[in-house]
């Protein structure tokens, strides 16, 4: 450790003070017999200002008092430091999103029928403002309800190349913690599976070469 210089002491004080410091206050850090001249303190401040140029801090003078603060350019990162814990989506929001993903394009009425409870406009608004769903059309039935589908941002957020990457329902049914009671729902899921795998097989045989192309082009632009 080299000798402690006036500027080091001034810098340390500015770093820890928690408030702007006047020249008087900076001078008061030193014992009487080692009191630096005003010009020395000013010189130290100038040195600090220059040394900061390359880093995240800048020296500010507010009403004859000095303080170090972070440069505004750092706000995007530092805001994340103080960001509150992210909120959590309610079960209703997640269920709605899941149903839209698996059943799109679909209407609020259909989601309500499946969930067995009303879907508030807030839920839809939340998902739209998050840009995970959007209105893709209107259903030609009385009331002309909006049809919702998922977006590219949805795929990106869940790291999916396409919706086809979502696990089929039958897999969901047999996930741990689930009782595999072979009732109608399971049958339906199986039926869905059969359809899907048939389609996949017939295609796979013909166009392996396109495989990668296909999955890429499936994602909307």
């Amino acid at each position, binding site marked *: 450790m080299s000798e402690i210089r006036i500027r080091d002491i001034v810098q340390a004080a500015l770093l820890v003070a928690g408030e702007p410091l006047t020249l008087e206050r900076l001078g008061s850090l030193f014992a009487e017999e080692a009191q630096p001249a005003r010009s020395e303190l000013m010189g130290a401040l100038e040195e600090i200002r220059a040394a900061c140029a390359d880093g995240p801090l800048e020296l500010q003078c507010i009403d004859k008092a000095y303080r170090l603060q972070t440069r505004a350019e750092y706000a995007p990162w530092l805001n994340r430091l103080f960001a509150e814990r992210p909120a959590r989506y309610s079960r209703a929001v997640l269920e709605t999103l899941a149903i839209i993903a698996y059943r799109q394009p679909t209407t609020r009425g259909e989601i309500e029928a499946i969930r067995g409870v009303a879907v508030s406009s807030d839920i839809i608004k939340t998902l739209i403002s998050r840009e995970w769903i959007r209105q893709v059309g209107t*259903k030609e039935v009385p009331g002309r309800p909006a049809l919702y589908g998922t977006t590219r941002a949805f795929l990106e957020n869940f790291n999916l190349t396409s919706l086809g990457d979502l696990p089929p329902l039958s897999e969901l049914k047999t*996930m741990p913690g689930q009782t595999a009671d072979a009732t109608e729902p399971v049958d339906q899921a199986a039926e*869905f599976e059969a359809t899907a795998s048939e389609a996949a097989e017939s295609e796979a045989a013909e166009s392996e070469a396109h495989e990668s192309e296909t999955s890429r082009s499936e994602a909307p632009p």
Partner: protein
Amino acid sequence: MSAVLVRGEEWSKIPDDLYIPPDALEVILEEFAGPLDLLLYLIRRDNIDVLDIPMAEVTRQYMTYVEIMKAVKLELAADYLVMAAVLAEIKSRMLLPRPASADVEEADPRAELVRRLLEYERYQAACEDLEARPRVGRELFLPEIPMEARNLERPAPKVTLDDLLGALRAVMQREDAFAHHRIMREPLSVRERMTRILEQVRSDGFTEFSMLFQVGEGKRGVVVTFLAILELVRESLVTLIQNEPFAPIHVKAAA
């Protein structure tokens, strides 16, 4: 501090024959951390080997200090008196002749006291180490830099695929909802394509059927698109229009 008080009448009550080093009173008034602390102080002060304590002398000195503490009306913890009794007991046992065939373990009546003193001494040393460490607010200070352009926006919630699938599982578990609605009949790629087609077609104009297919997708893409269109037609979401046989087919969102 009760220093003045000490030099007052209480001081005069202390027996003349007591040896009190000049610094001792100060130490007493600084408050010993307990009887073991006082004992250790006496032992160290007189350079006594803690493993071979002269009980008579130490007990006498200990009692002297306890008397002084009483005299200056220090809040005297009962623990000091308990220790005095312990010391007196050890001293008296030391006076008894030891049986010739003494058990080694039983040999020294001081053993337990010494063990406690040594044990306590270790923690005293640890305490001094701790006290000597640079401490925040005393030797160390932490930077407290204000942040320019601070802006607190609550970040959007994170949702994982597991969260999503968990939610779906919950829906599926609601047995009767599942039974009455045919969720997810079609492969998801078809469902997805349905969304995309709906985005492409408009209700106020026609989109050519063939435009919905992309050559680069190969047969698989064609099949998926075709299934999607059929499904859309079935759900009355789009209308197909063909003016005459073999004429171009047009697709229009249901008006």
